């Protein structure tokens, strides 16, 4: 009875130690929080969005972000000023003038367009909104609007949903691929190993963009956005697994030699037991770390694909799509706020990197 008991203690304390080491990496911990926050946003995208991301209106085209005034006199009542727009006949820019006379107060949990929370509960409440909801013709644009007068904030929320899940799905797929293949390659070695190593080398030798283009262009275009979305995910991950495989293999190779594994073998533990009871515990941590580091790559890939017009295309909304539409001179010159979608990209990628580093350092202070 002592055997498995000790085993558990051993494993537990190992995770515990990892957690302790991880906690030392302050920024990593913070990053972890950020990441969680973003994924909450993914769940509640339509709650956080306060306007229909597709509702276009020429008369508010390219409206700069509206400053939010938190206090009315001394009373706390967040509001924005009503805005009137016109195109300047000389500069051809759209000029917007706030009218301090007309305050539009922001209501929390205000009613807005209808949606299903978590895809289940029908709701009309949104984090913020204007009293009277949409019909009042009063509007707020905390991040401004795009060319078609669509609310950037709301579009951003919906994009977050797609972009972050794409990363997640992608990583899951490449994780499976990576672990299985890397595992085979590392645990058995021999022909399996050489073969898989070749494949990896070949995949890595071919510049990714042609691969993307080839695969992405091969997708039937009459697929629905959702289908394409999944296909793209698969594509990205098809190229993403090699790195993970490498890590896994490395670990397996290292482990094979380690005493406790060897002894476990000698004692005559079944291979499964050897792998899962003895190897996997000290092993998971690395996978987690590697995965975390793979995620930002996925996210970047998504934006890159969209930039090349190979990824998700407009109607669909993703960070990549938003950025791709901001990828022009006039944006940089006269409507820079359209580049805001880059901010979440940067934050998330950073967060994932720090998180990943933290996890990896925690996983094994000695190796990488």
């Amino acid at each position, binding site marked *: 009875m002592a055997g498995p008991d000790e085993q558990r203690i051993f494993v537990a304390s190992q995770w515990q130690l990892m957690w302790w080491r991880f906690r030392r990496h302050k920024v990593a911990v913070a990053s972890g929080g950020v990441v969680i926050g973003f994924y909450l946003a993914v769940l509640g995208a339509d709650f956080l969005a306060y306007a229909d991301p597709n509702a276009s209106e020429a008369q508010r085209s390219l409206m700069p972000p509206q400053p939010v005034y938190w206090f009315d006199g001394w009373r706390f009542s967040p509001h924005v000023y009503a805005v009137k727009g016109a195109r300047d006949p000389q500069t051809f820019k759209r000029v917007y003038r706030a009218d301090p006379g007309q305050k539009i107060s922001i209501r929390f949990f205000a009613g807005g367009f209808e949606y299903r929370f978590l895809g289940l509960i029908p709701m009309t409440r949104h984090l913020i909104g204007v009293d009277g909801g949409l019909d009042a013709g009063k509007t707020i644009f905390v991040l401004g609007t795009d060319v078609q007068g669509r609310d950037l904030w709301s579009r951003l929320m919906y994009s977050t949903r797609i972009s972050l899940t794409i990363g997640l799905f992608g990583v899951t797929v490449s994780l499976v691929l990576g672990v299985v293949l890397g595992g085979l390659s590392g645990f058995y070695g021999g022909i399996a190993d050489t073969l898989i190593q070749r494949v990896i080398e070949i995949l890595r*030798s071919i510049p990714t963009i042609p691969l993307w283009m080839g695969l992405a262009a091969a997708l039937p275009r009459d697929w629905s956005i959702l289908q394409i979305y999944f296909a793209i995910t698969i594509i990205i991950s098809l190229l993403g697994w090699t790195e993970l495989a490498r890590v896994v293999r490395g670990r397996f190779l290292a482990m094979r030699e380690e005493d406790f594994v060897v002894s476990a073998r000698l004692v005559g533990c079944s291979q499964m037991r050897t792998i899962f009871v003895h190897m996997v515990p000290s092993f998971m941590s690395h996978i987690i770390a590697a995965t975390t580091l793979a995620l930002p790559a996925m996210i970047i890939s998504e934006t890159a694909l969209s930039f090349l017009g190979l990824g998700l295309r407009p109607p669909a909304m993703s960070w990549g799509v938003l950025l791709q539409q901001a990828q022009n001179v006039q944006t940089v010159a006269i409507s820079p706020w359209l580049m805001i979608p880059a901010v979440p990209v940067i934050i998330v990628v950073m967060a994932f990197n720090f998180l990943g580093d933290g996890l990896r350092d925690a996983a094994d202070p000695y190796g990488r």
Partner: protein
Amino acid sequence: MLVYIGRRAVLAIFTVWAISVLSFAIIQLPPGDYVTSYIAQMAAMGSVVTDEEAQNLRIQYGLGQPMYVQYLKWVRLIAQGNFGMSMEWRRPVTEVIGERLWLTVVVSVAALILTWVLALPIGIYSAVRQYSVGDYLATFVGFIGLAVPNFLLALVLLYLGFVLFNAHIGGLFSVEFQDAPWSAARVWDLLKHLPIPALILGLAGTAQQIRIMRANLLDELRKPYVVTARSKGLSEARVIVKYPVRVALNPFASTIGYTLPYIVSGSIIVSLVLGLPTVGPLLLKALIAQDMFLAGTIVLLLGVMTVIGTLVSDVLLVWIDPRIRLEET
């Protein structure tokens, strides 16, 4: 040692072959062929190509044949050192790639150097001072390059370059030097255009390198020989620089081989935005126009570069790192 290199070389050849097949296949993946996209171009410009003409073109370009036939044809050409004719550029592929290829190398090298200048010190610092504020700051700086979508960054820098410094927009040469023969002046002109691309391309790689350096060094710092060095009474700085850093550099130095092609293929998007006359945009256009031979050659080229690069790196590693050498032989 020789045995090792030999074995690797054989494998490399196999890989190259596989790449040639794969790259050819990739190019065939998209629907239609060069003629389709040619007609589309024409149509987009208001000229019309009739079905018959299209068919005729296909025959002229031998696009009718089954894929494996085309592949063999291609391989045979390559065997003769002739990479075929670019359909869109109506010039031998080699000519089209010509100068672009080595301009690409120039840009990449510049980026590479920048990367290291940034990555090495940062990496060392953040390893030695793990979890210090400095560590975080340094890594943060390093990661920015990784996190910012570089096509956007490129465009912004392009615009700022124009607004703030009246810089020539994009490209690697001013108009007057565009086709000029090589001269000191032209080189200087090239150098003047280099910083922005190098920066953007470099930044992307930096984070990666920082990470490698940091990890390697953390790894080494804990090795007993560091204690030995300390116990000799060496100053801390000397201890670090002479021993762990030196060792940690090995795998680092060995990456030279494949970082270059890596940067090259990574530079495609940026080159496109900055309008650099490198192979990147060429490849992109070729792929879109389904200019088989051109695209195929470039992909193959990059692939081969990577393979050779990797080979060189490994050999290099074996050469500079005695430990491995001894294991290998």
